[in-house]
């Protein structure tokens, strides 16, 4: 026999009030599961970590300073840290267009030139790389059509593209942006496609069961599921972007940190060269931190996962 029941709309139900089935799992229950004392320990731990991290640079700088004679090492080739600092100060805050120092007061302008080019090229790489990666990872036809080309072009170093870039874009920022976009594109597309390939099949089935179409699944399931891999690609790509901008500016652009680097070397201003190198390092570090912060925000669900799993 079979019990035939009138199917009722869920809204009409007079269900048992708040059934006491199983309880939430221990600490993971409510949204606030911060261990006690963490607020107290955190600042001291942070201070300790900063001190530990600063030890090596301080030792190196001190040794470098003490090894110098009359402000330089290796027979005048390498300036000591105090000279580098002085050079950077003039470069950053000196009066513009006066005296014999062509770099005086141009630091910020050059930082902005380079950063803008990285931002533009990196943005292009994201706009092309993420959709292409999702397509390659998700669709067999897209993978068959795009992946071989990507894999064959990928081993060509961006430095090898320099003559091509100058020939096509001439001397100017266009070539730099092209090289940055190209260099950052590869890690973004490769990691994104890997992430899209690895999406849990059950999540796709669940979305299909709930009536989601192909585009909805790509946007609402495949993209968020691939996001951790996408961010891995973004961070690697951004690093390559900074390499590309310096290479391009050294050869094919008349402004930016790469241009100053090569120009200062040419006229024997090693103090400016080193100040420039440190500037590039800092910018690379800060931009990576920025991407990391966005990742932290976008993947909050994943952070909880690794804590509780």
């Amino acid at each position, binding site marked *: 026999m079979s019990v035939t029941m009138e199917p009722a709309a*869920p809204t009409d139900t007079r*269900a048992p009030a*708040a059934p006491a089935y199983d*309880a939430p799992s221990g600490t993971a229950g409510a949204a606030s599961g911060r261990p006690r004392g963490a607020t107290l320990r955190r600042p001291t731990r942070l201070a300790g970590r900063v001190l530990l991290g600063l030890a090596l640079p301080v030792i190196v700088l001190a040794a470098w300073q003490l090894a110098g004679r009359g402000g330089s090492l290796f027979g005048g080739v390498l300036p000591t840290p105090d000279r580098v600092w002085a050079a950077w100060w003039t470069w950053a805050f000196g009066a513009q267009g006066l005296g014999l120092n062509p770099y005086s007061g141009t630091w910020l302008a050059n930082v902005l030139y380079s950063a803008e080019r990285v931002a533009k090229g990196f943005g292009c790489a994201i706009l092309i790389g993420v959709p292409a990666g999702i397509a390659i990872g998700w669709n067999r036809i897209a993978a068959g059509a795009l992946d071989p080309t990507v894999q064959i072009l990928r081993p060509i170093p961006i430095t090898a593209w320099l003559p091509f870039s100058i020939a096509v874009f001439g001397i100017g920022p266009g070539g730099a942006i092209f090289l940055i976009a190209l260099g950052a594109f590869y890690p973004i597309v490769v990691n994104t496609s890997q992430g899209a390939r690895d999406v849990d099949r059950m999540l796709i089935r669940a979305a299909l069961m709930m*009536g989601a179409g192909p585009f909805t699944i790509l946007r609402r399931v495949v993209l*968020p599921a691939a996001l951790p891999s996408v961010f891995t690609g973004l961070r690697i790509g951004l690093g390559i972007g900074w390499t590309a901008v310096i290479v391009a500016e050294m050869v094919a652009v008349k402004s930016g940190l790469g241009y100053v680097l090569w120009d200062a070397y040419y006229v024997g201003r090693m103090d400016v060269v080193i100040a420039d190198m440190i500037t590039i390092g800092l910018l690379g570090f800060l931009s990576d931190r920025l991407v990391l912060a966005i990742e932290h925000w976008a993947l909050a669900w994943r952070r909880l996962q690794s804590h509780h799993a």
Partner: protein
Amino acid sequence: MGTVLFQNVSKTFPGVRSVRALDDVSLQIGEGDFVALLGPSGCGKSTLLNLLAGFDRLSDGALLFDGRPVTRPGPDRGVVFQEAALFPWLDVWNNVIFGPKVQGVPKSEYEPRARELLRLVGLDAFAEALPVQLSGGMRQRVGIARALVMNPRALLMDEPFGALDAQTRLSMQQLLLDVWETLGTTVLFVTHDIDEAILLSDRICVMSARPGRIVRTIPITLPRPRSIASLTSPAFVAYKADILAEMNVVHH
């Protein structure tokens, strides 16, 4: 009119050594019936469910749902997966409303229903929790609410409580009994747990493996509404002895 009709359905998975997962299976499930597929792992019971869900295509025979051939997954057949398969980046509320939202159902229509279902499965206080913050049983309750919010014509459950500890499983079975009493949806329930099959269903289809076949259909006439207290009743134990004997035959 039966809402589900398997007619001489076979399913072969191609490969170097092709696997015949289902062989000439016929099964009819009426409106509002609760049917359990019981059998050892590898007997094709999940394959049967996946065919009805539209995740796999049948190799032979016919499969009708509400009189129409099944060609693809759809919200008329809500599926509850073994490991819940919730979207880990969405909170409980957004997991539950995912279906109606992507189908373009107006918010005013799905919101009250989703809220009611969350209350029905006892999770109204956890709407903003992420799946990872929930226990296995709670996750599975979200999975049930997510399927029911679409007002499906049938609920397909693939060993939904198989991964839970014994105590949680009991409370989930009670919950499902309560929900089913209220909503009366057609249910196809896959399990390898004999107690679970007897407790929940109107009819048990016992399956054998390699190739997967339904070897026996046992109507369960235990009175409803049932509860986990039924697990120790004499009628229940008699059913269990019967099925154990059957499965013993199946295995040897």
